C-alpha cells in the first residue's frame, strides 16, 4: 500500500514537469499582458496623437461609460446573431458530413477527395477571400447581373448596405471558411472511435440514424463540447470577416458591428482603459456562457 502510494507521487511529479514549458511561455507571453489588461481597465490611459494621456486611476469609470452609452448591448446582440447565423448551419453541415463519412454502409466513393476539399477555403487569407467576395457581390458584379437576368430584381441590390444581406454575407463567408475546420475536428474524433463498435452495431442490424445517435454522438461528446466551446469563444470574438467586409464600419448603421470590432475602435487611440474594460466584460460573458455549456453537456472529466 505504502509502496504504491509512493509510486503515484513519483509519477505525478511528471505532471509538473510536462506542464513546465507551457506554463513558462504562458506566463511570459500571455499572463503578463492579461493582468495588464485587467489592471488597465481601471485607468484612463490612451494616446492623443503621440501624447500619452494617463494612466490616471478612474475606478469603474470605464465600465460605467461602456454601459451608460448602451451600445455595448447592441454589439453584443449583433455578435450573437452573427454567431448563431453562422454556427447553426455550420454544425449541422459538419455533423451531417461527419455522419456520412463515417457511415460504413453508405460507402461513399471519393470520400477522401471530399474530406480534403472541405477544408480548402480556410487556406485562403481572409483578406484575399473578401476581395473575391467584393468582386462577386458588387453592384455591377456577377451575382447582381445574374439576379437581374433571371428577372429576380430590376436594379442592383446593395448587399452590404442592407442589414439582412450584410449579416447574411458575413455569416456565409465565415461559414465557408470554418465549416471544413469543424468537420475535420469531428472527423478526427470519429477516427478515434473503435471501428469494432460500428461493426458490432451493423451485425445487430442498427439503422444509420441509430448508430449515429447511439454510438457516434456519445463517444464524440468531448470533441463536440470542444467544438461548441471554441466556436462560442470564436463567435464572441468574431472580428476579421465583418471587419474586412464592412471596412471596419459595421455598416449599415453598425448592425454588423461585433464586440471585438468595437474593441478594435478603441485600439486606434491605444485606449487601453476602455479596451481593457471591454475585454473584462467580454471575458466574463464568455466565462459564463462556457460554464453553461460545460454544465449542460455534462463534461465530467472522470467519466470512463
Amino acid at each position, binding site marked *: 500500500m505504502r509502496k504504491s502510494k509512493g509510486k503515484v507521487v513519483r509519477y505525478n511529479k511528471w505532471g509538473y514537469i510536462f506542464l513546465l514549458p507551457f506554463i513558462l511561455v504562458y506566463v511570459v507571453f500571455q499572463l503578463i499582458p492579461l493582468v495588464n489588461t485587467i489592471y488597465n481597465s481601471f485607468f484612463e490611459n*490612451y*494616446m*492623443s*496623437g*503621440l*501624447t*500619452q*494621456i494617463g494612466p490616471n486611476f478612474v475606478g469603474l469609470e470605464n465600465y460605467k461609460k461602456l454601459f451608460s452609452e448602451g*451600445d455595448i448591448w447592441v454589439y453584443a446582440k449583433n455578435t450573437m446573431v452573427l454567431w448563431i447565423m453562422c454556427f447553426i448551419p455550420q454544425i449541422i453541415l459538419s455533423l451531417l458530413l461527419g455522419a456520412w463519412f463515417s457511415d460504413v454502409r453508405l460507402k461513399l466513393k471519393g470520400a477522401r477527395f471530399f474530406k480534403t476539399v472541405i477544408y480548402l477555403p480556410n487556406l485562403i487569407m481572409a*483578406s484575399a477571400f*473578401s*476581395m473575391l467576395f*467584393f*468582386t462577386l457581390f*458588387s*453592384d*455591377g*458584379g456577377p451575382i447582381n447581373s445574374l439576379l437581374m437576368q433571371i428577372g429576380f430584381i430590376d436594379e442592383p441590390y*446593395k448587399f452590404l*448596405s442592407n442589414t439582412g444581406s450584410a449579416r447574411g454575407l458575413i455569416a456565409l463567408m465565415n461559414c465557408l471558411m470554418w465549416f471544413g475546420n469543424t468537420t475535420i475536428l469531428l472527423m478526427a474524433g470519429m477516427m478515434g472511435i473503435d471501428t469494432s463498435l460500428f461493426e458490432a452495431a451493423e451485425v445487430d442490424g442498427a439503422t444509420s440514424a441509430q448508430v449515429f445517435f447511439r454510438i457516434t454522438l456519445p463517444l464524440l461528446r468531448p470533441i463536440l463540447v470542444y467544438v461548441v466551446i471554441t466556436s462560442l469563444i470564436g463567435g464572441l470574438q468574431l472580428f476579421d470577416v465583418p471587419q*474586412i*467586409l464592412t*471596412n*471596419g*464600419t459595421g*455598416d*449599415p*448603421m*453598425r448592425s454588423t458591428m461585433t464586440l471585438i470590432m468595437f474593441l478594435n*475602435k*478603441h485600439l*486606434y*487611440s491605444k*485606449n487601453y482603459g*476602455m479596451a481593457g474594460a471591454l475585454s473584462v466584460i467580454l471575458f466574463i460573458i464568455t466565462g459564463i456562457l462556457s460554464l453553461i455549456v460545460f454544465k449542460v453537456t455534462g463534461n465530467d472529466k472522470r467519466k470512463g
Partner: protein
Amino acid sequence: MKKKIVSAILCTAMAVTMMAGCGNNTSTNAAADKGAAAEDGAAADTAAEETPAADESADASSDEGSVLNIYCWNEEFKSRITDHYPDYTEVDATTGTIGDVTVKWNITPNDDNAYQNNLDATLLKQADAAADDKIDIFLVEADYALKYVDTEYTMAVSDLGITDDDLANQYQYTKDIVTDSNGVLKGVSWQGCPGVMFYSREAAKEILGTDDPAEVQTYVDTWDKFNQTAALAYAAGYQMTSSVNDTYRVYSNNVTSKWVEDGKINIDDNIMQWVEDSKELVDAGETGTHELWSDDWSKGFYPEGKVFCYFGPAWLVNFSMAADTEGSIGNQGGWGATEGPQGFFWGGTWICAAAGTDNASLVKDIMLQMTTNEDIMKEIVVDDDDFVNNKPVMEAMAEDTSYSSQILGGQNPLGIYCAGVENLDLSNLSAYDQGCNEEFQNAMKNYFEGSTDLDGALDLFYKAVVEKYPELTY
C-alpha cells in the same frame, strides 16, 4: 478589404506621369543624360563629385552617426533616392550606403495602421534609443501629417539649417500641410499633386454638345452649375460622377474651419454642403455611393460605365484609370481635363526629420537635394513622371507647347494643374483629419443610402470620432 486597398493607395504617394513621352523633349536633354549616367554605378560617383552638396554630406558623415534610419511604408522614396541622390549606393533591398553612412530602410506597410503603430512606438522610445537605432527620417502623408508635425518628435527644418529661401520655389500648400500650430515648417516634399476634373470627351459631346475644356468648364465652375449639369448628364444616360466620394476631397480641401476647434468636433459649412449636394445627386440617381477603388467605382474608366467625370491629380488619369488597357477611355485618348468647381490636391509624401537624429547634416542634404535641387527635380520629372514640387520647373513644362498628353486627347493640362495648385489654401488642417474624413464619409454613406436620417448619420460620425480620439467632445 477595400479599405485596405484604399488606404494603401491613399498612402501611396504618387508618382505622376504628366509627361508621357517627355523624354524626347529637347529642353530636358541634359537632365536626361544625367539620369542615365546615374543608373550606372561607377558613373554615379563622378556625378556626385560634381555636386557641391555631396561634399558636405561626406564631411558630415565623419563626425555624425554611422547609420541613417528611414521609416516609410512603401518603396517609392527609396527608389527616388536610389535613382537620384548623388552618392547613394544600394547594398540590398533594405540597406544602402551614402559615403560611410549605412542607410537602413524600415518599411512597414499601412494595412491595419501598422506603419503608424510602428512609427509611434519607435518615436516614443527615440530618446532612449542607441544612436544607431534612432529614427533619422520618417515619411508622412497629408491626412495624418499634423499628428507628427505638431509634436516635438519632429524637427523644424530651420533647425537643420534649411532656410525659407531654399524652399521659395515650392508650392505653398505643400508647406501648409507640414506647418505646426506655431507656424513652424517641419517637413518638405518633392511632389505636388494638384487635382483637376477629368471628363469623358464623348460624354461631354453628348451631354453638353462640346468637349472643349474651356467650354466644359463653364458648365462646372461652381457647385450649383455642376449639380445642374448632373441633371443634364442623367437625362443623357450618364452618371455625373461614379461616387459621392469623388467630390468629397474637393469640398474638404476648401474648408474655412478645422475639424477640431478647442477640443470640440466641428463640421465645416463646405463639408455640410457636400452632404446636401451629394444627397440630392444620389436620390436623383446621378451618382453612386461606392467606395473609391471598388469595382463599381472604376467601371467608369470604360465607356460602357457611363460616368461623366472623375476628380483627381495627374497620377490618377495616367496610372490608375486603365489607360494601358484596350477599350478604356484613357486608351482611346478620351479624357479631357478642366479645373472643375474648386481646386484640390490628392496624395503626396512628406519627408520629416526626427528630433534626436544623429545625422542632421545628412538629413538636411537629402531634403535639399531631393526637394530643391532643380537638376534632380527635372530628372525626377523625366525619369519618374512625377509632378515635382518646384514652380519654375513645372511652369516651364506647362508652357512647353510640344508637350501633350495622349490620354487627354492631345491636351497639355499642366497649366490647369499649376493654376489649381496656386490657389489651394490648406491652413485649416488638424491632427485629426485622417480619422474625421474617414469616419465622416463612412457615416454619411448610411444617410445617402437611406439607412438612417441626417441626424442619425451625424450621431454615428460623432460617436466614431470620439472612439478614435477620446479627448474630443461634440
